[in-house]
């Protein structure tokens, strides 16, 4: 595994990884495999259908294990679509850490479209973390278009935490989670755009089974001339509970559209949505200034807290 300073910094940013990961991992770098390790319970293999990407199979009853699958793009001009499929057995409790870091110092576009499909078996819990980060002073765009499709079987649950703070020129995100009986999906989304960046997040949570639960907590900050569009949808097809909460802070000349949608196809479906867009409140800044922070420090503190 060849590791440069850029690799190390990107890995730390996107996967909190310092050094070689413990447990199962697959490191994809500039379209190639830069390191892979399966464990007794987590098997990682290249796909056999000709598409780029990996299959991850997690055996029944795997508890307390972690699987890291970071992606690094360090060369300008790489554009890729990668298909990763997760097959998680029954009664598991695992952490999956994905994330992509782009370092683009060139003039050509770097783009990574990660298509992830999760099949989560009965009574299994998955904590899925995904961080997107991009840097580099070249003129080339840094683009992510992730798609995440999750099938939750009876009693299964996923907590999906996605973060994209700065650096990404354009992102179009699509997330779909289908919850079976008693399944639960919790999605937290954190996003900060600046410059002329664009971000779109299209999300659909389908509460198909009785007693399914869904919760979306989206917090975003749009600065300068950036623009964001949120389209979280919650569909209740059975006795279920769903809650969508979108909060955005708007700054500078930014633009934000937030369009939460709830659909009930059953009288026992209980669905709530809340959406708010606003600037940082003046009294919040004043309060923090009375505690000794400058206006800039106060703003930074409010944004960090909001996106934490």
């Amino acid at each position, binding site marked *: 595994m060849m590791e440069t300073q850029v690799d190390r910094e990107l890995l730390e940013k996107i996967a909190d990884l310092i050094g070689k990961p413990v447990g199962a991992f697959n490191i994809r770098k500039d379209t190639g495999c830069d390191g892979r390790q399966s464990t007794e319970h987590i098997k990682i293999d290249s796909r056999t259908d000709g598409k780029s990407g990996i299959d991850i199979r997690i055996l029944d009853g795997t508890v307390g294990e972690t699987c890291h699958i970071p992606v690094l793009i360090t060369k300008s001009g790489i554009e890729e679509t990668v298909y990763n499929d997760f097959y998680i057995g029954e009664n598991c409790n695992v952490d999956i850490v994905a994330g992509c870091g782009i370092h683009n110092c060139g003039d050509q576009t770097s783009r990574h479209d990660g298509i992830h499909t999760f099949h989560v078996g009965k009574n299994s819990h998955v904590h899925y973390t995904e961080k997107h980060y991009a840097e580099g002073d070249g003129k080339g765009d840094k683009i992510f278009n992730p798609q995440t499709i999750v099938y939750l079987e009876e009693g299964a649950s996923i907590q999906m935490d996605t973060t994209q703070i700065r650096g990404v020129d354009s992102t179009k995100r699509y997330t779909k989670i289908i919850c079976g009986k008693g399944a639960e999906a919790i999605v937290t989304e954190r996003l900060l755009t600046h410059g002329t960046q664009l971000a779109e997040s299209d999300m659909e949570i389908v509460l198909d089974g009785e007693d399914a639960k869904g919760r979306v907590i989206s917090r975003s900050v749009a600065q300068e001339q950036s623009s964001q569009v949120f389209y979280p949808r919650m569909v209740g097809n059975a006795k279920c509970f769903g809650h969508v909460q979108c909060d955005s802070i708007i700054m500078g000349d930014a633009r934000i559209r937030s369009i939460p949608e709830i659909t009930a196809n059953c009288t026992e479906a209980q669905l709530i949505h809340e959406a708010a867009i606003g600037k940082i409140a003046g*009294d*919040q800044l*004043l*309060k923090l200034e*009375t505690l*000794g922070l400058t206006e800039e420090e106060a703003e930074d*503190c*409010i944004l960090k*807290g909001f996106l*934490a």
Partner: protein
Amino acid sequence: MLELKHISYQVSSEEGELGILNDISLTVPDHKLVVFTGPNGGGKTTLAKIIMGLVKPTAGQILWNGQDVTDLSITERARLGISYGFQQPPRFKGLTVRKLLTIASGNEKLSKDQCCQYLTKVGLCANDQLEREVAVSLAGGEVKRIEIATIRARNGELMIFDEPEAGIDLWSFARLTETFEQIHRQGKATMVIISHQERIISLADEVVVVAGGAIRQRGSAEEILPLILSDTLGSCPVMTKEGAAK
């Protein structure tokens, strides 16, 4: 020592210039507890905000420990030891009680124990509150108590409290007055408290009655309290009528 010299604050309205504060001069000696009281709209809060820098006076001078702070920013005044408890503290999505106390204390490594002490002193259970967000989910009284805890954590030489009792239940109120007594006894901070409460007024070394944008009366709690009470009764037509019916 805090010195206010000829402070005025005027705003433009349709009827011309309106004087919110008119030529107020006042000195608060070190380590004294001074209560500003008086009718609503009389100018108490504006005066307190002028001390913190939240409002800029249209005339006059503010001296803190001999230094002219009139043109200093809020942040600069805060760093000189002036602190301010808001009557209606703002809420912050994502900022925890612990983080707010940490910022207030200026100590990045503020321990959990220290946080707990600040919260316990305002009648909050620290374990329940520390990691909670200071957001809309907190009750009004809780936010108010957290506000007072931040001022304690700030540990400034000058503590200004704008109606600390507003929104606080009776139970916590007893604790609140104890807190003020305790700070006062320690003798390290100068306190300016805006209050309508007899129990808080009675703690004061000096009571300043602000009404109509001017200082109407000054004196000890013993001198001023009876005057306030008689004035209140005297100016209330219902009470006068009932009194007359007897």
